[in-house]
């Protein structure tokens, strides 16, 4: 308990000390997870919407695969990306292993099924009559889809929040493919693991608090997008 209280006090001291190494770590965490989230949103929302609205053979199987992907252990995805990008792997020539690029790839794969899956569920929750009604009013299929997505806005934002939560807090995959290299691929979660192993619990707690706070800030920002839905 003492460790925890001391850690919290020290956490604020460290955060306020404007230590450049710490801000590098924070910045990299946000950049990697932010870019990965952008990719998975761009891929996941259209896919989720298509799977909710379109009727095609194999849809049931794809849904099952997507749901499996939502619960896939991140560290296994890390291992997969590692083997792909390894010197002896098929994409070894890229030289991406142990760079932020590899971390973005892994995090995109982790968060994309979450974004797609939750989007699908949200869109399926919209009254199916709406689409027919929109089409009969002369909307193009594109316009109809966008309108339905806007209708499902709350669910879609939950999808993005879930995707972000999964990757900003993820440690196994980024440790494997990033390598926790100081000043290069060290992010908040891998730094927490390192400091804990070194016995620097105070610093580990400080980093944990920073992580919590960042997560909170991002979620507040996303909720503001949801804004009107609550009023």
């Amino acid at each position: 308990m003492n460790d925890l209280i001391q850690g919290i006090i020290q956490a604020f001291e460290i955060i306020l000390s404007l230590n450049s190494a710490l801000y590098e770590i924070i910045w990299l965490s946000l950049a990697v997870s932010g870019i990965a989230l952008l990719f998975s949103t761009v891929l996941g929302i259209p896919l989720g919407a298509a799977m909710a609205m379109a009727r095609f053979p194999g849809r049931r199987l794809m849904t099952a695969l997507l749901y499996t992907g939502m619960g896939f252990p991140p560290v296994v995805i890390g291992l997969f990306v590692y083997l792909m990008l390894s010197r002896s792997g098929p994409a070894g020539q890229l030289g991406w292993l142990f760079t932020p690029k590899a971390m973005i790839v892994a995090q995109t794969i982790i968060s994309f099924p979450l974004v797609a899956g939750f989007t699908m569920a949200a869109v399926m929750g919209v009254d199916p009559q709406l689409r027919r009604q929109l089409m009969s009013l002369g909307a193009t299929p594109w316009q109809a889809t966008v309108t339905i997505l806007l209708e499902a806005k709350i669910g879609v934002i939950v999808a993005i929040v879930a995707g972000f939560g999964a990757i900003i807090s993820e440690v196994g995959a980024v440790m494997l493919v990033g390598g926790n290299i100081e000043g290069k691929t060290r992010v908040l979660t891998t730094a927490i693991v390192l400091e804990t192993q070194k016995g620097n619990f105070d610093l580990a707690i400080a980093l944990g608090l920073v992580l919590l706070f960042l997560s909170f800030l991002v979620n507040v920002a996303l909720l503001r997008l949801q804004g009107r839905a609550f009023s």
Partner: protein
Amino acid sequence: MLKYLWKISLFVALLVLSGGAITSEITHAQSSPEAVTCEQEVVVQADDWLSKIAEKAYGDVLAYPAIAEATNLKNTEDESFAQIENYDLIEVGWKLCLPSVADAETLLDFALAAPEVTPSESEPVSTDVGRLVLATTTSTENSGLLAAILPDFEAKYGASVEVIAVGTGQAIELGENGDADVVLVHARDREDAFVDAGYGVNRQDVMYNDFVLIGPEADPAGIKGMTDVAAALTQIAETNSLFISRGDDSGTHIKEQTLWQATGLPLDEVKDLEDPEKITYKPQGDWYQSIGQGMGATLTIANEQQAYTLSDRATYLARTLEGIDLVILVEGDSRLFNPYGVIAVNPELHPTVNAEGAAAFIDWMTSLETQQLISEFGVAEFGQPLFVSDSAAWNAAK
């Protein structure tokens, strides 16, 4: 997936190959007499190994090179004797020449432990020593050394040894509290402090293992074969060659920092955020990457990036079995040595400790026979020993 199946089968194959046999890389006979007389002729049976035959004939598995040498010498004059090229490979039906003990000793250049002498030598204690608690570092336990040699102690002294494998600091603490009877650790300064403070008595050198500087075969810094580790590190720095540091405040990381300090290069001093007294030293430049992970992960990353790194020999050798292709470039500098000492816990301070057992353990650990066991450990699997024997008795005998 296939790649891993392949790796696993390779590993199993290596184990099978090395089990029972001792690779031929350890010292072959230095002196070869002109002629040799066979005291016994043996035809190889199924499941025979040279070492097994040596054990039967001379009571010493290590006498096997003598048989091979003698047989090869005989082969030059009488072709019915086999020609043994690889000491690990003998075939059923081959005729071998077993020289007399005296001839074998000449061939081997070391004295054989004749079986009839061994029991009287190795039982100096009349009563069984019973339960003995040994506090030691993880390296001796994880490398498998203790599992390989302790049964001999337990059999000879009627002991049952309980091994507590922890970090050096904690092992010493167990000794200070009288929770262990004897400690086997590697941190000379702390060992001396332990003895000076009266917690321990009878400290003896046992062995050392060492760190090696490894890197890619291409060796862009051109350090292969250098014997001055500081000069080699300087060259890595000057050529901006990628170097992976553990950066996790471990024993290896601490050793690495002292080596960088020895280079005289300008170093960055990074103050610990939590404890400003503690300073981490690291050279300047992007080529130096601190990853804050264990030895295993460090080797993986260095291998992927074809970078240089500092590793303890045992972990490096174990990983070569799993296919890392980094090679040892610099070794043998005394600054890379990591000496182990054995210390009995002071019975005056803690009357409950097994002082007799601790004394027996120290005698046994430093005895020629055990030192021989230590110097053989790992040879069968890796082609080189993991620990170098270093007791006073061993060094005197050398």
